[in-house]
């Protein structure tokens, strides 16, 4: 969803990392033009993008046309569920979403209890760069409003998880009932240095589209 829920500070750091290149991204879109993941794209660091709504960043379209970017388009719910399945140790799942559409072409379709379902495989990443709100020193995380989105799902589905947060508090300061991502999922914490709408510039010029 644009830049909301994006770890902008970490992405900024990736820009200057010379060996961070040829990346495959799993993200609903690829940021905004020139911002967040969109900036990494412009720097030629992304080779393959898995997502559900690239249309909101015209740079994706252009790189795709030049053959500089491979894309894999997945319905948003299937993307979220595939990431969850990756984190939950499942081998795959069946969903009704996409049956009868072009995205089902060449895919396994199965009739279950009289309805048609598409088979989908789990998605996992080597590294997840996620955005949360508060972390305790153990790595327990809470999120902020709709910046939660794919972050808790992705936190479970990667070998290494780096969480960018607004605030780091002592272990014990988060109510155990309110922890959304428990600490075993989180490997590194980074304090955010980029505030949306201030350091990242206006966001709302690109409204419309997932």
């Amino acid at each position: 969803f644009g830049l909301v829920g994006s770890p902008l500070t970490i992405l900024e750091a990736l820009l200057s990392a010379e060996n961070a290149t040829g990346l495959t991204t799993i993200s609903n879109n690829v940021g905004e033009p020139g911002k967040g993941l969109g900036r990494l794209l412009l720097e030629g660091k992304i080779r393959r993008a898995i997502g559900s709504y690239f249309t909101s960043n015209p740079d994706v379209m252009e790189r795709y046309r030049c053959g500089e970017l491979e894309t894999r388009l997945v319905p948003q719910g299937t993307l979220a569920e595939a990431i969850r399945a990756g984190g939950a140790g499942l081998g795959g799942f069946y969903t009704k979403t996409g049956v009868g559409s072009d995205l089902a072409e060449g895919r396994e379709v199965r009739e279950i209890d009289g309805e048609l379902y598409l088979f989908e495989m789990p998605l996992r990443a080597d590294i997840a760069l996620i955005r949360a709100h508060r972390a305790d020193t153990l790595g327990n995380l809470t999120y902020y409003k709709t910046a939660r989105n794919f972050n808790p799902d992705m936190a479970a589905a990667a070998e290494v998880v780096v969480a960018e947060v607004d605030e780091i508090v002592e272990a014990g300061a988060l109510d155990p009932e309110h922890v959304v991502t428990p600490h075993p999922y989180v490997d590194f914490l980074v304090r955010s240095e980029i505030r949306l709408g201030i350091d990242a510039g206006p966001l709302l010029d690109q409204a419309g589209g997932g």
Partner: protein
Amino acid sequence: MSASAVMHDIARRVARHLEPGDVINLGIGIPTLVADHVPEGVKVFLQTENGMLGAGPTPEPGKVDLELINAGKLPVTEDVGAAYFSSSESFAMIRGGHVSVAVLGALQVDRLGRIANWAIPGKPILGVGGAMDLLVGAKTVVVATTHLTKKEEPKIVEECSFPLTGARPADLIVTEHATFSVDEGGLVLEEVAPGSSYEWVRSHTPAPFRNSPTLEAV
């Protein structure tokens, strides 16, 4: 009517079909406007697929929270009794049948009520979002669309030339000229909009349709 007035008119006509307590999800464009026309006394709950139930109206200028947005990336507010959740939980809610009404836009609708709203042939297919999930998951699917394209071509056609969003037909199709329901036989004209005429609808709707028994004498 201006284009904007037409869009609001369609949204208003859709909103009349909402019932108290409905959990609704609104697509981008005309569907988003439905929130402004919910009849008084009808309390509905807005689900946005990026992970919120109970999205409230657009915030006043100066009160925008940049991390509180709907799936169309527009700023919203928190309604009383709202809840946040992750994307996988949001789509579990959608696919699991817990959204009462999804209002979707459409590029085309076919004779069986199936919709095409995500891709245009000849262009690279780079966006699908939550449309396919909402189509299969919502208890009721309402299409909110202008009757014709900007080039004045009919959108309710025999066969879609654009790729279908899914096999499931919509339940209701609302344009500025007419309202159709959908049954196993296909489209059923339920209403001709005030200011339009049966003849206009007939001549601008290439898809075959039957007339509802409750359709007022035309």
